[in-house]
């Protein structure tokens, strides 16, 4: 394979050794990355006892699909799924709507007060109010226990604004903007018709960054939401897994034999569906990733290397 593409110049011995090491290293890296994926896939269709005793370490043992059955029959998981999709789609749309214009404006050298605004925005990277004040703000905005609490407070990420700004600065030449202005183009139209179409990579990257963030986030739902019907998927998963940890010792509750028995059977169910749920919840991200990956590499590189 390498030979077919390789240039006609013969490789020296040193090169060959180097190449050998590279391949060996890449193989190790591959195993390290691949093993957990395979393990989780196998564990999700294995008997949980085999998983816990360590008998199952690579390929599935005593194959059972009971875990998936439980996942697919659990209405809370589907509701969580739906909520997560809502949070991710709406949240990411809002993120883009806020980040891209902000980043573009900050990338323009003729933007008066640019340094001042940038300073202010950067400041929030280093100092923030902390949990309680943030909670109070959200509460006073009337957002507690609403879906907005998971979307609005995280509408803009400074880090992403900076990345996008650097992208705009390095890929959209000032001359382009001047030419457009001479032709009578307004700033809004310039952004909409010229800048955005040229910025597909950064849009994809931002969508991915923000989207994955929304998909995986659970802490804000933990803090701001009170009713289960609004919980995102990660929160539902957490609850399922936490039920497993619950035992007579840890509850401090008035206990009886029946409760203990149920908890113990819940623990089994939980260990059965744990891996299934992990697979189901990460699948969409894994599925989307290859399509965005092309932009991903390109976008981040362009943002970081000026050229």
């Amino acid at each position, binding site marked *: 394979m390498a030979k077919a593409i390789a240039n006609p110049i013969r490789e020296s011995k040193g090169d060959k050794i180097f190449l050998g090491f590279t391949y060996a290293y890449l193989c190790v890296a591959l195993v390290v990355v691949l093993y957990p994926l395979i393990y989780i896939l196998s564990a999700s269709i294995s008997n949980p006892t085999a998983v816990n005793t360590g008998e199952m370490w690579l390929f599935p043992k005593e194959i059972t699909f009971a875990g998936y059955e439980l996942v697919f029959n659990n209405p809370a998981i589907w509701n969580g799924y739906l909520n997560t999709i809502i949070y991710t789609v709406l949240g990411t749309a809002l993120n883009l709507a806020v980040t891209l214009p902000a980043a573009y404006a900050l990338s323009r050298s003729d933007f008066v007060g640019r340094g001042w605004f940038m300073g202010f925005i950067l400041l929030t990277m280093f100092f923030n109010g902390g949990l309680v004040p943030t909670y109070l703000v959200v509460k006073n905005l009337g957002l507690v226990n609403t879906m907005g609490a998971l979307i609005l407070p995280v509408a803009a990420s400074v880090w992403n604004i900076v990345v996008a700004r650097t992208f705009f600065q390095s890929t959209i030449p000032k001359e382009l903007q001047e030419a457009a202005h001479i032709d009578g183009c307004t700033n809004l139209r310039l952004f909409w018709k010229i800048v955005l179409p040229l910025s597909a990579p950064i849009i994809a990257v931002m969508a991915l960054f923000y989207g994955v963030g929304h998909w995986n986030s659970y802490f804000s739902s933990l803090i701001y939401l009170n009713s289960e019907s609004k919980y995102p998927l990660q929160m539902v998963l957490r609850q399922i897994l936490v039920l497993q940890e*619950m*035992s007579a010792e840890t509850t401090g509750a008035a206990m*009886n034999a029946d409760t203990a028995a*149920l908890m113990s059977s819940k623990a089994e169910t939980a260990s059965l569906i744990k891996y299934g749920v992990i697979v189901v919840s990460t699948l969409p991200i894994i599925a989307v990733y290859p399509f965005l990956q092309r932009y991903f590499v390109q976008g981040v590189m362009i943002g970081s290397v000026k050229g």
Partner: protein
Amino acid sequence: MNVRSKAWKLLMIGGLGASLLAGCGSKEEAASPDAKNAEVKKEGFPIVEAPLKMTMMAPDTGVQNWEDMVVLKEMEKLTNISFEYKNAPKDSFETKKNLVFASEDYPDVFYAAGLTPSEQLKYGEQGVLLPLEDLIDEYAPNFKALMDEYPDVRKSITAPDGHIYSLPVIEFSQHWYRNPLWYNGSYLEALGIDKLPETTEELYTYLKRVKEEDPNGNGKADEIPISSVTTPAANIRDIRTWMLGAFGIYEETLFVDDNDVVRYSPIEEGYKEYLKYMNRLWTDDLLDHESFSQTAEQKQAKGESNQLGLFSAWHAYQLLGTEASDKDPMFLPVHAENVEKAAIAKNGGIKTGAFAITKTNPNPAASMRWADYLYSYEGSVLFNKGPEGTLWEYTNKEDHTKKAIPAPDGKDSEEIRSTLTPNYGIPAPTILTDEVNKGLTTEFDEWVNNETQTKLLDNGARVPFPALFLTVEEQSEINSLNSDLSTYVKQMEAKFITGAESVDGGWDAYVDTLKKMGAERVAEINQGAYDRWKAN
């Protein structure tokens, strides 16, 4: 310059807008603090004539939405008081509780909140939690009668400043301090043992035989004589209480001895003996070498593949994955040769901090009457067993004998119960007595009760240290001492047991270090609190 001032204007307008918005949110709080207390009936139901709505904060196990719980709906019908539930998942309830206190976003009542004594004192003194003693006198006949009948209840829930800030969980029908240890019955049979070990040496012999004689009969030496798990909170806690007991120590940190002297366990001579014994089990490979690293599920898996000889569990069959049976006997607490009898810890049955009323509550009297119902026989049955006719019915209403109704569609009745009532897996304010369960116990339950009675209670089980209050200063001193002490104790315990440090060689230095870290001070502070409690 001109532009700059424009930017400032923009900012100020933005700020103004935000503060306007902020104004909107807080309206609801001030809705109904009018003195409606007058309308609360002192007896009979409903508690209030006009419907009353309050907010309740409670941990949630995620089984059912609280709005849909039959028991809470029944309660609403009965009392005319409804609640808006502010639930937080059980595992993160602490975080949310702290947030609520810090942000002054109080619910009207806390339910099953597990407020610690220091939280009760701190927020009680700040006026966030209302003192309840006057309300109890006037509006809580059931709870009052209970306190008169059991003086320990009043003693344990009264803060050092003389106020009562919370109502407790009371369980007089549950005597276990920790889950019991159980013998694997099939092992006992295979080894031909008909008399359970009574001393540490006999126990050692049993464990040794489990190791060497292949009692599970699969031809492999895969038996693990005794296994345990370690949690972030404590090493091998599930077996430690029982092992310490053999050397005359009731509990792993603090206990009061028979002469009313408070002891700090890790510096006691008995603790050293315990470490030596455990080290011996470790070196001879009788104590599972994964005890300091495995998870509960891993232990469970070993139990299910019939590898364990002695283990901690609620019931033995749950860990072994078998049907309930009386074949696996409960561990009879053993004692060391130089100790006359084993120290056996018993559950005190009182846990404070289950129910509290905050200063935002529009009608504390009504809330108190609501909570009082939970401590009546009817209330306890409703909240702990569900409404009559769903999972149980009376066979004799006079003497409270009940019988179970099988759950529909072959479902687990406990599973159904967990969707009916909030009192599942959370420290809910209630009283549990044998009367509540009357007629609902199975033959197996009777057997377990009998094991508990003969092996633990009849052998002198007692409460190691009563539930009591420390003052805020005492508590903060203890907290700062304990943060060092417990880490060090935990580390050294593991080192001693695994043999990384020899018990004989390292013990004196270890005790010295603990003393320097304030071990004696911890005992001293608690001694003071205990004396106060005793004199109360």
